């Protein structure tokens, strides 16, 4: 079974926020200065603990006003705007942020042409409002998202407008353009614009660059990405950095291309970068994906030689890899080692280890580990229980399995497909069909699986049972 254990699957799901394409303005900052802090975009990691929510400075006005404009029509919006202006007393100075919020809420539901006209209207009726960089960035983000037109006329118009008003596009503008274009699947335009803007003295910074590389490496073939890297290096002297290499290595590992990953490591050394903990973790994860979990030991040793300090993710990956490779005893030793190093095993660590034990058929040992884990104050999650249920079902410890299931049911935990199917099958085999039906009911009720998935597992288990019974009766007949 070369599958990622359930425990890892959920934590991988947490990385979704990095991919989340739908924040209209990733770096929208209410201040006129370009945003200085940006989330560090790196390939998905295995632990949720490292995830940093990209902090967007939410404009408080923006939330309260997001529903001001109900129709996309320009004239309606103008009316609404005028009434807002009239209703505020002259003493109350409306600041730029307020206007920006209004503007954004309108442009969210409208098209770029109307947004632009609305902006003109705003500046005309309210001379105190001077559009700043954020205002233009709003316009920029929205003009990137208009349904495809080949030459991006509205985007170019906005860029020209920015130039005229003394805000030549800077790195944050490039970032917004690239992210918005990528979020609507127009990567080619993004590449084109990066090249163009780089020549106009606003090259993308390393965050934008790495974002683009990461995005492309997910949807394009490797050679295209390499082509782009080379292209950017030659034309605008943008060099890949450690993060870029990590992204590339991660993406080739995902496509199970070990040779390319090794080559990239060589290139990395040649370019004078020293692998950091994160890169080592990525390599370890690569080996795990490639089903050669035993190799993680080698990576770990190399890390120690290079004097790179391992972190929790390293240990979790290590234990996962060893468990998967069947070296559970060694994996178990690392529980102690990691605690010595000051990293306390978490639910993921324990679940990986339990998974390894269950694979070896030692489901009862895994159950003991659950107790140990709870004693140490580490709370098991639903993946832990599912792993155990799966293991107990496989090794036919039905009563223990049932106990565990009851516990899961009490706390409303969801069942995973594999553990559900295994459990139902072993219940059916033991002729505890009514109980199997009960598990089916719970799976449907708790919406763990789709009804069809739950039913087909039940049905095929019953079919299998009939077959076994049929075989038995025929053999009896012969005798």
């Amino acid at each position, binding site marked *: 079974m070369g599958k990622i254990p359930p425990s890892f699957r959920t934590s991988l799901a947490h990385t979704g926020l990095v991919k989340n394409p739908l924040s209209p303005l990733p770096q929208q900052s209410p201040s006129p200065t370009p945003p200085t802090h940006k989330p560090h975009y790196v390939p998905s990691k295995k632990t949720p603990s490292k995830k940093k929510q990209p902090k967007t400075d939410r404009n408080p006005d923006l939330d309260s006003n997001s529903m001001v404009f109900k129709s996309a029509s320009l004239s309606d919006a103008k009316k609404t705007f005028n009434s807002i202006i009239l209703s505020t007393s002259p003493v109350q100075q409306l600041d730029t942020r307020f206007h920006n919020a209004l503007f954004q809420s309108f442009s969210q539901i409208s098209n770029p042409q109307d947004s632009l006209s609305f902006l003109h209207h705003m500046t005309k009726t309210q001379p105190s409002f001077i559009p700043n960089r954020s205002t233009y960035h709003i316009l920029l983000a929205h003009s990137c998202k208009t349904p495809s037109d080949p030459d991006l006329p509205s985007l170019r118009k906005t860029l020209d407008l920015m130039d005229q008003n003394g805000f030549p596009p800077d790195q944050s503008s490039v970032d917004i353009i690239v992210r918005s274009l990528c979020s609507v699947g127009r990567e080619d335009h993004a590449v084109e614009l990066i090249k163009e803007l780089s020549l106009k003295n606003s090259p993308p910074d390393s965050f934008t660059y790495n974002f683009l590389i990461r995005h492309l490496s997910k949807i394009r073939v490797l050679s295209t990405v390499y082509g782009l890297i080379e292209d950017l290096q030659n034309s605008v002297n943008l060099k890949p950095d450690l993060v870029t290499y990590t992204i590339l290595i991660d993406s080739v590992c995902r496509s199970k291309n070990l040779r390319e990953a090794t080559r990239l490591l060589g290139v990395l050394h040649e370019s004078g970068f020293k692998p950091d903990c994160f890169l080592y973790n990525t390599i370890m994860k690569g080996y795990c994906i490639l089903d050669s979990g035993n190799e993680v030991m080698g990576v770990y040793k190399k890390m120690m030689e290079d004097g790179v300090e391992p972190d929790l993710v390293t240990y979790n990956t290590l234990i996962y890899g060893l468990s998967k490779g069947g070296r559970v005893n060694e994996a178990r030793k690392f529980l102690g080692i990691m605690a010595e190093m000051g990293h306390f095993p978490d639910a993921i660590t324990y679940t990986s280890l339990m998974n390894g034990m269950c694979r070896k058929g030692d489901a009862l040992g895994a159950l003991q580990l659950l107790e140990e884990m709870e004693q140490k104050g580490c709370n098991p999650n639903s993946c832990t229980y599912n792993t155990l249920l799966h293991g107990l079902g496989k090794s036919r410890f039905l009563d223990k399995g049932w106990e565990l299931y009851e516990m899961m049911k009490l706390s409303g935990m969801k069942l995973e*497909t*594999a553990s559900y*199917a*295994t459990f139902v*099958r072993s219940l*059916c085999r033991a*002729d*505890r*069909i*009514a*109980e199997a*039906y009960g598990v089916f*009911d719970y799976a*449907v009720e708790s919406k763990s699986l*789709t*009804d*069809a*998935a739950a*039913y*087909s*597992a*039940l*049905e*095929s288990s*019953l*079919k*299998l*049972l*009939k*077959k*076994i019974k049929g*075989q038995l009766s025929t053999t009896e007949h012969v005798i």
Partner: protein
Amino acid sequence: MLPQRAKTALLANPKKLGNLIDLVNLPSTLREFVGQSQISRLGCFIRVWSYIKTNNLQDPNNRNVVNCDEKLRSILLGKPQVELAELPMLIKLHFPRGPK
């Protein structure tokens, strides 16, 4: 021992899934029981199973066996007693594979 079947690979097969969840015109016997003229095999199974549960038809001595009442008997080949294990197969009888 039989080789372990690919557990839920069934769902990877769209034809089999369609077989399970597509609405089917019902024969008159089933129509009476279900109370509607169209239902999927999955929906029918769930309907029958919940009928068994609400009317408490499982045998108190052996929960794996259902003592059919008259209404249930009418759709399950007239058997006075059915095993839960055969329930999916019995219901499947009402859903013959249609012409391709």
